Structure formats: structure tokens, C-alpha cells
């Protein structure tokens, strides 16, 4: 009985950590004037269909490095696409002269810094990496 109680306690301690890591939030600069975004708007911005924030400001989406698990999880949760499928998707648009992929940065820390410095920037980070000076406008839950 003691062992079972111990396992439940350990699970209770560890589970929130996993839950926190599994949620990805879309963030903007607090000065952007955006309160929240719908899933359709997030898809349109990150897939290069229509990069405009609700207030009329041009959206500058930011991707973290291709090797990052957050990026793979973001697109998997947003549009159910693997890294290879996203690469194929961008090949369609880039090589037909339509649009460019999001601006790429090496990690979540750089993405947050860019969002802090630009009211047009929009990025995604793991909720656990969130800082107080950016605004969450959409959340993807696993």
C-alpha cells in the first residue's frame, strides 16, 4: 500500500511537468494590440497564407530551428504535419515565387527576445519557456 501511495505521489509531482511541456503557446508583443487569435488565424499566419494580425498590423512569424522538438510538435498539433511535410509545403510556395517561410531563429529564447522587441513578431514556445513580458494569444493543448 505504501508503495502505491508513493507511486501516486510521484506521478502527481511529475505529471504537471509533462503537461506543461506538452502545451505550446503562441505569443506576441503586448504592444501589438492583439488579445487572442483563432486557430484559423494562427494557421494562416504560420503557413504564409495571410500574414496580418487582427488589428491590421503585418505579422512576422518566427520559427525555431528545424531540429527543435517544439517546432515539430507545433506543426503536428496545429496542422497535423510532419517536418518533411512542412518542408514539402514550403517548397511549393517558395519555388513558385509565392511567399517565404517564417523567419528562423535557433531557439525559444531568441524567439521570445524578438517578440519582446517587435510588435509585429509572433512566435510559438513551450509554455514552460514563457516569460512575463510577452502575451499569450493562442494555446495548443496536446
Amino acid at each position: 500500500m505504501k508503495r502505491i501511495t508513493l507511486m501516486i505521489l510521484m506521478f502527481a509531482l511529475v505529471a504537471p511537468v509533462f503537461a506543461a511541456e506538452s502545451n505550446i503557446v503562441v505569443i506576441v508583443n503586448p504592444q501589438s494590440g492583439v488579445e487572442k487569435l483563432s486557430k484559423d488565424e494562427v494557421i494562416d499566419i504560420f503557413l504564409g497564407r495571410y500574414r496580418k494580425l487582427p488589428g491590421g498590423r503585418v505579422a512576422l512569424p518566427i520559427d525555431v530551428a528545424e531540429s527543435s522538438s517544439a517546432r515539430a510538435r507545433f506543426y503536428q498539433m496545429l496542422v497535423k504535419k510532419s517536418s518533411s511535410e512542412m518542408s514539402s509545403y514550403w517548397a511549393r510556395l517558395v519555388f513558385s515565387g509565392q511567399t517565404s517561410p517564417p523567419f528562423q531563429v535557433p531557439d525559444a529564447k531568441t524567439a521570445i527576445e524578438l517578440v519582446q522587441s517587435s510588435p509585429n513578431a509572433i512566435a510559438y514556445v513551450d509554455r514552460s519557456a514563457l516569460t512575463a513580458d510577452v502575451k499569450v494569444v493562442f494555446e495548443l493543448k496536446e
Partner: protein
Amino acid sequence: MRAERFTLRGFGTIAITTHDADGIEYRRNVGQAAGVEAHDAGLDSDSLAGLQFNAHLTSTLDGVVQGVTRLNAEGEWTPRITQAFLRYSPDESLVFRGGRFGYDIYLLAESRQVGYSYLAVRPSQDFYGLVTNDEVDGVDMSWTARLGRGLVRARVFGGRGSDATAMADGTHWEGRSDVIGMSLDYSLRAVTARAALLEVTYGKNADLVGLGQVLLESGAPDSIDIGAELIRSTQTSRGMQLGIAYDGGPLQAQLLYGHILSDSIAGPSVHAWLAQVGYRIQAWTPYLSFSTSRNRDPIRSTGLPDIPELEPINAVVDQLQRDMRATQRSASIGVRWDLSPRWDLKLQADFISIDESALNFDRRGTPGDTDMTVLTAGVDFVF
């Protein structure tokens, strides 16, 4: 925060094709001077390579230059500039382009050059095989706005286009044309629907004026009608396309109908359908497609007597029409294996039933119905 000022990217396909129809040369489209012969293994039909240079000049202005080398209508691999334009976008909703760019005839893949960007080994031969040019030297404007939960995009374009068609007798025809068109897309999450119109106007074809004059002077009513079409100052082809595509999660599907109708026997008049579906299972995406193209109008006769003196004229008029006909059906099965986010490997089998088609060269003395199986293995890459 700013995009990279200059970027250089590339793409390519190395694909080997073979088939089993003796006397037929299989090719990707009528813009290729040679095809793969039966029981041979050829690299020419689908292999190509391209480079693209992007210059991000200001926040609203950028430029693109793209060059591609592939087998052309002269039988050579001379690189060709496929895109060279400046894009001005004063607002995310409005984009203007000037220069050479492609126009919207592909629904799930906007460029047929980049094999990595689409599911099958090649764009459907039935649906796109008569299209030798999908670029225009001109200007376009597109406007995008939110409509309900989705997006609507309207685009108009106009300019000069060029075609190059390779004939079975080893000659090829090149023509310049005035092109205008428009397309309307509606996208909502994974679904995109499109309606597009296109009008292509050619000037008088000097090679056919002499034939037209002879036909006009023949006195036979049908012959006079055909002659009048050939000597007219312009000849027009009008195309229409309706399509819907789903690209969500592991499922990709598209259904397209298109036709192009011409006011002269020297132009194509074809109706085509394409249905394709693929489902990704981890790195593998098996797919199926069905397509058909059909000429609904019968071959027109000159009405001139079938006597030895007039046989060359009748033969030329007949061949002129056959060079633009494409009545055939295809069923294709294949699999795409994504080796990495930059490479894929594809295997595809096409089962084609040809009634009467200029898409492939028919070297048999007496062309007729043909069933053929085409096997292709290819690697696509981008960098």
C-alpha cells in the same frame, strides 16, 4: 528583425522510367523532343534541376530569379529562366508582380518543376501533358482577404507567353501568345477550392497561312471553313479549371476538372479530369490517382476528294489536328518515402489506355489503341 537579404536555393529530380508499349515513346508532356522507348530505361522524361535566387530588397519589395534545366522541345537541356520578377507588396492583402512568373494551374503544387513539392512522380500527363508553358512575361495582381473563417484570394494576370511543342516527325513548333487570366481561391484550414479562367491568343501562324489559302481556294465548304480558321489574324484558346483539394494531417486529396477549347483546328480542344488521394503512414505516403483527357469533337475533314493530287493536303489537315489531340485514361499507384526534410524517394506505376493521343510519340506504322504500363523510380531534393 529582417529576412535574409539574399538567398540561393535549389531543387531537382533524378528519375528513371521504363514502359512496355512497343513503338511508343513515353514523355512527360508535349514539350519534350524525345521519350523513353519500350523496355528501355530513360532518365530524360522526369529528371531536371533548378536554382532560385531571392533578393529581399526592402520590406515591401523583393525579387526572384529561377532557372531550370530539363529536356526541351529541341531535344536539349539548355537552362531556361522560368521565373524572373519583382514583387511589390504594399500591404499583406495586395501583391503586384512584374516580370516572368507562373500562373495558377496547379492546385496542390504551384510549380510542376519541383517534384519534392508534390506527391506523385510527375504532374498528371493526362491533365497537364498538353501544357508546355505555365509562365507569362507580364504583370499580375493578387488580393487576399478574410471571408468568414477562411481566406479568399483573387488574382488577375496578363502578358506574353511562349509555347514549344515537339512533333513526332522530329520538328518542333514555337509560338508566342497574349495571355490573360484570373483565378479565385477559397481556403479554409485544410480545404482549398479554385476556379480559374485563361485566354491565350496566338498571332497568325506563318507556316499555316499557305495551307489556309489553298483550302480557301478549293471551293469545298468544309475546306473553306478550315482555311478561314488558319489565315485568321488571331487564334484563341480558352481554358477553365475547377478544383478542390484537401491537405490536412496525413490525408491529401484533390479533384480537378479542366478544359481548353480553341477556335482553330491548330489549337487544342480537350476536357480533362484528375482525382488523386494519398495517405501518410509515418514517412511513407502511398497514393492513387485517376485521370482522363478527351477530345469530344471528331477529326474534321476538308471535304476534298480522296484523290492522289489532294492527298497531301488532306493528310496535313488531319495530322495538324492529331498533333493536338489527347484522348487517354490513366490509373496510377505509387508511394512517396520521405527520407529527410529535404529528400524523398518515389516509386510509381502508371497504367495508361490510349485511344488517340499526341502526348506520347507513336512510331508504329498504323497507330491505334494502346495499353501501356509505365514504371518510374525517382529521387527529389531541395536545398
